[in-house]
Each structure stands twice: as C-alpha cells, then as structure tokens.
C-alpha cells in the first residue's frame, strides 16, 4: 500500500538533460525539445538544458519571425524560470565558433567549457538529444 502511495505521489525524481544541437526554425527540433522540456517540468523532474553546436543559436536575442510566417518561441526560454527550470548550460566553444558571446543570448545561462559539459552529461539519469 505504501508503495502505491509513493507511485501516486510521483516517486523518484530523475535528472533529465535535454541536449540541443540544432538551429531554430530551419528544422522542428528546437521547438520539439521545448515541448518535452515543459512536459518534464510538469512531472517535477530535475531538468537541465544543454546548448551545443548550432543549438546556441536557439537563444539569440532579436528574433523576429514575422517575415517567415512561423510562430517565434524565443519568449518561451525566458518563461522556463517560471517552471523552475533554471539550469541552462551553453558550451563556450560553440559560442566562440559562431562569433557569439553570452550578451547575445535572450536568457541568463551558465557558460561552460566542453569538459565541464561532459561532466554534467555524465551525471544525468536520462539524456535526450534534439
């Protein structure tokens, strides 16, 4: 009986990391990732987001999608804090390879090197790649 109660209350909290490596709008990956991130937040999991390679482009400021008739999801990154998703890691090497810096990004993030990113990935229970 007590086991069932635990299940109903949600039971284990796992560490989930969402690894984002695609530019936004050219493909659906960035938006799909955000959808799953929000779902995982609803299940009160320990969520972190990693932005590597072209994934860093997802966080650019000054995104205006009026001209391509697609809905912008830029504001959603700023709303993540409201869902207690505050662990956003951006890989330094990926920013530098694209001529970008932390100031170009729409949210506060932790900029980490590739080695630190590898450690963060290694300590997760579940890693989902987009």
């Amino acid at each position, binding site marked *: 009986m007590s086991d069932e109660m635990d299940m109903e209350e949600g039971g284990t909290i796992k560490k989930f990391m969402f690894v984002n490596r695609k530019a936004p709008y050219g493909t659906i990956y960035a938006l799909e990732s955000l959808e799953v991130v929000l779902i995982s937040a609803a299940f009160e999991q320990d969520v972190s987001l990693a932005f590597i390679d072209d994934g860093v*482009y997802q966080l650019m*400021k000054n*995104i*205006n999608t009026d*001209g*391509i008739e697609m809905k912008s999801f830029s504001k959603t990154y700023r709303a993540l804090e409201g869902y207690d998703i505050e662990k956003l890691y951006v890989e330094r090497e990926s920013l530098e390879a*694209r*001529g*970008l810096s932390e100031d170009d990004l729409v949210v506060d993030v932790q900029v980490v090197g590739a080695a630190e990113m590898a450690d963060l990935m290694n300590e997760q229970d579940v890693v989902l790649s987009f």
Partner: protein
Amino acid sequence: MLHIVNKSPSERNSVDTCLGHAKDGSAVLLIEDAVYAATAGNMSEAKVKAAMPNVKVYALGPDLAARGMSARVLDGVNVVDYGGFVDLVAEHSNCQSWL
C-alpha cells in the same frame, strides 16, 4: 547560374561544396539555416569572403530576422526579400538547390 543553399554551414557542408562549385559570375543565395554563413564570426566567414570577389552572395532578409542575425551580416552580402528571391530566379537562366 543561381545557387541556393538552405543548410547551416556548421551542420552540413552544403555551403562549402556550393562555394567550391560556383563559377565566376554566378550568384549564391543563402536561405533558411544557410544565412548563418553570411554572419560575422561564423566559421564560414573566411570562405564566403574569399568567394565574394567572383561570386555575388545574397541572403534572405526574413530568414536573417527570424534568427536574430540581421545586424550581423557580413559587408558585401546583399540582403534580399522574397520579391528579390523571385527576381534572382528570373534573372538567371538556371539554378541549383544544394540540399
């Protein structure tokens, strides 16, 4: 010939291969994720700049804006809108889309 590329230079080699096959006097139009190739600090910057004396490089404005990249376009790249896209296709006798 008009070459059209839509893939990010840091994910696929389409931009590289296209620039390697674009003959003098031809035009390259960067759309969708390929517009990153036309931005300052990108890893393709040197290759795009090296091609510019011989090849006209265009980038689609709405795709730059959608990616927050409008203010970072390289000097010498011509930004066009959808009307300009149509004009480019009409002006050239043939075109190739590098997927």
